[in-house]
C-alpha cells in the first residue's frame, strides 16, 4: 500500500501528494480517522481525492493510504432487506457500532459475515461450466432464490462442489482449467463498471405498477427507462414509492439520493408491513434500500446511484426483473457540480460540468432487457426510473433536458394538479411513453383486444376537453352546445373516477390491469350512451343525475374480487336508466 500525505483540504475535496503508482478511481483512506475517498484527478505527484465523509478537522500533513483498489462492492446473499449508505455500508450495523449519528472512518462489510446460508448445488463434480452459468442456489428470502454464478472470466471443469451451510466468504466450488479457481458464495464488482450482457432485447412487456395513469396511458416497459420530473410538492417521491411498492418486478432497488431522512424512515417503516399483492409476502423481502440523505456527505451521494445500479445488474444477471428507482437524480447531478466546482473545472450550463449529459446517458444505458452472459439462454431486465427535481419546476434546465434525451417515458408532474390534490399529479397532455405502441401485442394477448383503442379514445377525450376548456374560459360553460357538455362530462369522469388514485387508500392504492380495463371501458361506454342520448335531445344535466353515474365513481374503491360484479351491475343499470330516459323523451 502506498502512503502519502494531505497537502490541501477544501470541503469534500482533498489533495494528497506522494501517492506513487496511484490510479484513477483508486480508493484511499485519509487522515488519522481513515476517511474513505476516491482519486478523481492525478497531476504529477499530486492526487485529488473526493472524500465520502465529512472532512472537518482534517489537517494537512496527515497520512493518506492508497488501497490500490477501485470502489467495489461485495455481491452475494444478504443484499435483500438491507439498507445501505452511498458506499454500501449497512446503516443498521453502523448504528449498532456508532450510535444514532453517523460517525466517520468506519468500514463495515456490506454483507453479514456470520450468517450461514444453505447452498444447494445445481451442478455436480466433473461438469463443465462456463462464465455466468448458475452452479447453485441459496434461498435468500422466501421471495427470491439467489443464484450463484460462475464469474465472467472463469471456465473449466468443476472439481469440487458440495451442499452445505456457508458464509458469504466461504468457497462453495472450485473450477479447474489449467489453474484452479475458487468460487465463493459472494463476489466483488467495481461499482463504476457496468456488468456486461450478451445482447440487449427490445422491451415488449409492460412493467405493471397498479397505478392507473401509468399503466393505462404512459406505461414503462420491463427494461425501459423513465423520468419523473416535477417541482417540489408535486408528488415525485410518492410516485416513486408507489412504484417501489407495487411494480411487478422481482427485485426493487430504491436509491434515496440526497433526499429527506424522514422519507427513508417512512420506507423503512412501511415496507416491512406491506404485502406483495401476488405472493402475500412482505415487500421488504424483495427490496434493497440505498439511503444517502441530503445531509450525508456529498461525494457519497455521487456514488450512491452506482452502488444501487450495480446491485440491480447483479440480480438481473440471475435472470430476474429488477426495477431501480432513483430519487432524485438532480441531487446526484448537484453533487457532480459541487465536486466539479471544487476541482475548478470549467463549468458548462448553470455551473454543471460539461460531462453531465454523458454521465446521465451512461447511467440510463445500464438499464435494459438483456440476454445475460451464460451458456443457457437467460433473460433479465433492469428498469430505471429517475426522479428529477428541476429548480422552480422549469423543465428547460440541464438535468431535465439531458435526462429526457435518454429516457423513453416522461411522466410530467404538474404543480397545478397537485395544488388541487389531483394525485398522482401526472399531466396527461404533456407526458408520453414511447413503449406504448410496441407493447400492443402484449395487451392484446393479456388484457383485451380493445385495450389499445380504449386507451386512445380516452386520451382523445382528454385532449378534446382541454380545447373545450379554452372555449369555456371565453364564453362560459352554459354557452356550450349539449354534445360538447357531454364530452366534458366524460372527460371529468375519466379524470376523477379513473386518473385520480389515492396512494393512501387500502383498495385504491393498487389496481390490477384487469380492473383498470373494466373501469375504463365502463366509463367510455357511459360516455357513448350519453352522447347518443344527447343526440336524441336529452340534457347533460339530466344524465348527470343518473344513479349509474354514481356507481361508476364507486368502482375504484371496490376490492378486486368484487369489481366484476359491480361493473356488471353498473352496466345493466346504465342500460336500464338510459332506455328509461329515451322512452320518457319520446313520449
Amino acid at each position: 500500500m502506498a502512503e502519502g500525505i494531505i497537502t490541501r483540504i477544501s470541503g469534500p475535496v482533498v489533495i494528497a501528494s506522494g501517492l506513487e503508482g496511484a490510479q484513477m478511481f483508486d480508493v484511499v483512506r485519509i487522515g488519522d480517522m481513515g476517511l474513505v475517498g476516491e482519486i478523481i484527478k492525478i497531476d504529477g505527484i499530486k492526487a485529488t481525492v473526493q472524500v465520502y465523509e465529512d472532512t472537518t478537522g482534517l489537517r494537512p500533513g496527515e497520512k493518506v493510504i492508497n488501497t490500490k483498489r477501485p470502489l467495489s462492492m461485495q455481491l452475494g446473499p444478504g443484499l435483500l432487506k438491507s439498507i445501505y449508505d452511498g458506499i454500501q455500508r449497512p446503516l443498521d450495523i453502523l448504528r449498532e457500532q456508532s450510535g444514532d449519528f453517523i460517525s466517520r472512518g468506519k468500514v463495515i462489510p456490506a454483507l453479514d459475515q456470520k450468517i450461514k446460508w444453505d447452498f444447494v448445488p445445481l451442478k455436480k463434480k466433473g461438469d463443465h461450466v462456463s462464465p455466468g452459468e448458475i452452479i447453485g442456489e441459496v434461498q435468500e428470502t422466501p421471495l427470491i432464490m439467489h443464484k450463484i454464478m460462475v464469474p465472467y472470466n472463469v471456465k473449466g471443469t468443476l472439481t469440487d462442489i458440495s451442499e452445505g451451510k456457508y458464509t458469504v466468504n466461504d468457497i462453495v466450488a472450485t473450477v479447474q482449467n489449467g489453474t484452479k479457481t475458487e468460487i465463493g458464495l459472494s463476489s466483488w464488482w467495481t461499482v463504476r463498471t457496468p456488468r456486461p450482457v450478451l445482447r440487449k432485447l427490445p422491451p415488449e412487456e409492460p412493467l405493471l405498477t397498479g397505478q392507473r395513469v401509468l399503466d393505462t396511458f404512459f406505461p414503462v416497459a420491463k427494461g425501459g427507462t423513465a423520468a419523473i420530473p416535477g417541482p417540489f410538492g408535486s408528488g415525485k417521491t410518492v410516485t416513486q414509492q408507489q412504484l417501489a411498492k407495487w411494480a411487478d418486478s422481482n427485485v426493487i432497488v430504491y436509491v434515496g439520493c440526497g433526499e429527506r431522512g424522514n422519507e427513508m424512515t417512512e420506507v423503512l417503516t412501511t415496507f416491512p408491513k406491506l404485502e406483495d399483492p401476488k405472493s402475500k409476502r412482505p415487500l421488504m423481502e424483495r427490496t434493497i434500500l440505498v439511503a444517502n440523505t441530503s445531509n450525508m456527505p456529498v461525494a457519497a451521494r455521487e456514488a450512491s446511484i452506482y452502488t444501487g445500479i450495480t446491485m440491480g445488474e447483479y440480480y438481473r444477471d440471475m435472470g430476474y426483473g429488477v426495477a431501480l428507482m432513483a430519487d432524485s437524480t438532480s441531487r446526484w447531478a448537484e453533487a457532480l457540480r459541487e465536486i466539479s466546482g471544487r476541482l475548478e473545472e470549467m463549468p458548462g450550463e448553470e455551473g454543471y460540468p460539461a460531462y453531465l449529459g454523458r454521465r446521465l446517458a451512461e447511467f440510463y444505458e445500464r438499464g435494459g432487457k438483456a440476454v445475460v452472459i451464460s451458456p443457457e439462454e437467460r433473460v433479465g431486465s433492469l428498469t430505471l426510473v429517475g426522479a428529477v427535481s428541476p429548480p422552480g419546476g422549469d423543465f428547460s434546465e440541464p438535468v431535465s433536458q439531458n435526462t429526457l434525451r435518454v429516457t423513453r417515458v416522461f411522466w410530467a408532474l404538474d404543480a397545478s394538479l397537485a395544488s388541487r390534490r389531483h394525485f398522482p399529479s401526472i399531466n396527461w397532455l404533456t407526458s408520453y411513453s414511447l413503449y406504448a405502441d410496441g407493447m400492443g401485442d402484449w395487451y392484446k394477448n393479456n388484457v383485451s383486444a380493445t385495450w389499445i383503442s380504449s386507451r386512445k379514445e380516452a386520451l382523445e377525450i382528454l385532449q378534446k376537453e382541454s380545447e373545450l376548456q379554452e372555449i369555456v374560459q371565453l364564453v362560459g360553460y352554459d354557452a356550450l352546445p349539449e354534445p360538447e357538455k357531454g364530452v366534458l362530462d366524460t372527460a371529468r369522469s375519466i379524470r376523477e373516477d379513473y386518473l385520480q388514485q389515492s396512494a393512501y387508500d387500502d383498495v385504491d392504492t393498487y389496481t390490477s390491469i384487469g380492473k383498470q380495463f373494466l373501469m375504463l371501458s365502463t366509463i367510455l361506454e357511459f360516455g357513448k350512451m350519453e352522447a347518443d342520448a344527447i343526440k336524441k335531445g336529452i340534457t347533460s344535466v339530466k344524465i348527470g343525475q343518473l344513479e349509474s353515474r354514481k356507481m361508476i365513481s364507486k368502482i375504484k374503491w371496490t376490492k378486486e374480487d368484487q369489481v366484476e360484479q359491480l361493473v356488471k351491475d353498473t352496466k345493466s343499470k346504465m342500460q336500464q336508466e338510459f332506455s328509461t330516459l329515451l322512452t320518457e323523451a319520446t313520449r
Partner: protein
Amino acid sequence: MTDISYKTISKIAGPLMFVEGVENAAYGEMVEIKLPNGERRQGQVLDTRQGLAVVQVFGATLGLNIGDTSVRFLGETAQLAVSDEMLGRVFDGLGNPKDNGPKIVSKTKVDLVGSGINPYSREEPSEFIQTGMSNIDGMNTLVRGQKLPIFSGAGLPHNLLAAQIARQAKVLGGSENFSVVFAAMGITSEEANFFVKQFEESGALGRTALFLNLSSDPSMERLLTPRLALTTAEYLAYERDMHVLVIMTDMTNYCEALREISAAREEVPGRRGYPGYMYTDLSSLYERAGKIKGRNGSVTQIPILTMPADDITHPIPDLTGYITEGQIVMSRDLHRGDIHPPVDVLTSLSRLMNQGIGKGSTREDHRSLADQLYSSYAQGKDARSLAAIVGEEALSDLDRKFMKVANDFERKFVNQGMDENRSIEQTLDIGWELLSELSDSELNRIKPELIEKYRKKSGAGA
C-alpha cells in the same frame, strides 16, 4: 499548536483572510484574531493547505491589517457549551450572552456541525401537533419532528403566524416538556423585540433560548447562528428529553450571507449567484429536525423565509421546499382581503400530514375531508376567476356552488384572527359546515360511510 500566534496575514478580501506559513491548520478549525487595538474576533478555517490557511472572519473586518493583527489557531472545530441553563437566556449570533447574564459553563461541549442522523435511527414523526390554526391543523397538519417552513413575502404577517404557533402549539394528551429555540438572522431589532415580547406574554420566555443576529450585526455571523440554535435544540431534545420547537427567521438573510462568502471565495456561482452547494448547506440545517428511536425528545423546525418578489421559484424557497417536509405559503391577495392568517392553502403542503392524522390521532374523516376541501376550494377558485371574465350568471349551478364554498372557506375556515385557538374537532366541523352546500355525489373525495356519519354528526347539510 494552540499557543502559536501567527502575524503572517498576507491578504484580506471581504470576509476572508489569508494566513501564510501555517503548516497544518485543521479544516473547520476555529481561530481567534487579535487586532492591533487589542480587540478579539473569531474566525474559522475554510480552506487549508501546507503553508496557507484561508480564514473566514466572523464579524467585521474593520481594523484588520497585515503585519500587526495576530491569529491564533485554537486546535478545535466550532463547539458550543450546552446546558439546561440556556433556557430563558438571550445570546448573540455567536453564542455569547447578550442579556448581561453569566457565560454558560458546562462540561458538555458539542460540535456545531454535527454529523447527520443515521436514517436508520430516525423514528417516523407521527404525533399530531395542534396549533389551533384551522389552515394548518385541518389542511396541512404539523407533526413532531417535522420541518415546515413558512414561505412569506416582505410585509406579510409571518411573524404573527409563527408567534401564534409557538404560543398555541400542543400535543393532544401529551405531557408538556416543551421548549423553544429561536434563531434570528439579520432581522430588525423591532422584529426581535416582537418575538421576545410574545414569548414573555405567553409565559414561554423561561423555556426559550434566543440567538439573535440582528440586521446591524455582521453578516458572516449568520452562518453560525442557526447552527448554534440547532445544536442547542438537539441537546435539549436528545439529552434532556424535551420537545423543542426551533423557529429560524429569516432564512433569506442566511442564504445571502452564504452567497457573500461564496462570492468572496470566487467560486463558480449556481443560480442567481448562489453557490452550487446551497442545497447541501441548507439541508445540513433542515435535516437536523426529527426524532430518534429510543429517545424521548424531538426537534420540530419552523424556518421562516421571505421570498424575494413573492417568487416561489427563487432559489431560496425552491431549494428549501425540496428539503423540508412541505411549506406554509402566505398569500398577498388574502392579506389584502383582510384574512388572517393569510395562508394560501392550495400551494401549502405538509408531507407528513398522513402520519399524524386519522383514527386514533385526529379523526377518521380528516384525510378525506381535507381532500374534499382542497378540491372544492380549487374548483371554487377556478369558478371565481371564470366569473370575473364571463360574469357570474354564465356559470353553471355547480360552479356557483363551488364558488360559494371557496368564499366561505376563506372567510370562515382560514380567517380566524390572532386570538382564536381552535381545537381539531372545531376545525373539522367548520369544514363539514362549508361542504353543506354540496350534494352527496359532489363529495367525490369522501367515502359514503363517512359522509353518512359526519354530515349528521356535525349537524350540517342533509
